[in-house]
């Protein structure tokens, strides 16, 4: 172990971290899963969704952006924080139009999987029922903004991985939405179904056409194992 190794305490467990790592990176390496929605392993952290909120020395911070520093005392898997996370997920459900039974992402959806993992049995907050624009103009990819959680994965992936900047955000607050870099619609952009951005949406908002319901119920990503199991098992095995 090098002299530079940092020791942090997550839920009472001592974890080794490298300098420059975020709390989430250190936790992942140690097999401690911190729930996240806007984060993706192939993208730099966004810090948008706040699902990965932990308490660092008693103060809330997003684990995906907060650097690991020697001696930090971190709370993550506690009733208090998981309740906050569950409420964030519930708010995302009721602000959007997430009809799981009619969505082809169901079973592979990270929003849904976080609901399962965090024990969200029913959405008791009132639904907003706001109509949101759909864009099916592109021959291979569609956007259903009713299912958007504003995670910004497509924005980051298109810009940083695909080098295209097809997506961006427009509007503010409850009116914020994913916009495309075109006068009218997605079909006018450089978007391709093979782009990273096309396959990185955590929900069923940005979907490659003609692939829906390919996996039978029972064999989808989160049918039998909770989200985060891969991280927990990787370290255990």
């Amino acid at each position, binding site marked *: 172990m090098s002299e530079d190794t940092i020791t942090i305490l997550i839920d009472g467990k001592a974890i080794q971290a490298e300098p420059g790592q975020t709390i989430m990176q250190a936790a992942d390496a140690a097999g401690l899963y911190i729930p996240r929605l806007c984060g993706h392993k192939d993208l730099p952290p966004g810090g948008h969704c706040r699902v990965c909120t932990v308490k660092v020395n008693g103060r809330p911070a997003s684990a995906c952006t907060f650097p690991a520093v020697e001696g930090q005392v971190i709370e993550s898997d506690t009733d208090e924080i998981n309740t906050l996370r569950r409420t964030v997920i519930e708010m995302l459900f009721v602000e959007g139009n997430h*009809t799981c039974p009619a969505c082809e992402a169901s079973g592979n959806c990270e929003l849904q999987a976080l609901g399962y993992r965090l024990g969200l049995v029913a959405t008791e907050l009132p639904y907003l029922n706001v109509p949101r624009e759909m864009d099916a103009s592109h021959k291979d990819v569609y956007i259903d903004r009713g299912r958007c959680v504003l995670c910004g994965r497509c924005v980051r992936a298109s810009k940083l991985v695909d080098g295209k900047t097809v997506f961006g955000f427009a509007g503010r607050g409850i009116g914020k939405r994913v916009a495309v870099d075109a006068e009218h619609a997605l079909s006018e952009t450089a978007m391709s179904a093979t782009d990273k951005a096309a396959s990185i949406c955590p929900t069923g908002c940005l979907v490659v056409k003609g692939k829906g319901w390919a996996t039978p119920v029972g064999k989808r990503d989160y*049918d039998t194992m*909770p989200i985060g199991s891969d991280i927990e098992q990787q370290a255990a095995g």
Partner: protein
Amino acid sequence: MAKPLLATAAFTGCFGCHMSLLDIDDRILKLVELVEFDKSPINDIKTFSRPVDVGLLEGGISNDENVEQLRLFRENCKILISVGQCAITGGVPAMRNTVPLKECFEEAYLRGPSVVDGVLPNDPDIPILLDKVYPCHEVVKIDYFLPGCPPSADTLWAALTALLTGKDMGLPYELIKYD
């Protein structure tokens, strides 16, 4: 001791949750040993004859008859359980909630591509639609929720037997789903 009484209701849904209840296969014989059915579409009993212990609710609330029936269930059942996504969120019928009711009617009865000589339904026997499809818990107090579309037979069986025998539900991961 008399057996607990069970009532079920089908509001605005597809009857799939009731079908899932029937899908418990031969366990239905055990269920009949555990409970007695009161008002339910399964036995076609239309009215409550006495106070009921558990009411299972399928479907969201989309019209005045749903509201009336749901309130009747709340008055007559000690425990109410919202069963399935329609009861819990409004479900697929609630996909109309982002469209004004007038536009829904016009699309269905006047402007739709398959409509010939369209006319808006206006018979006093037809329940009046609400502006939106509401989850049951936005109309009355609900005690428990069983998600799923439908909740699987195993989910329904595990939850019902736990409730009827006073055990902790503690449903395993695979049994809680939104689809």
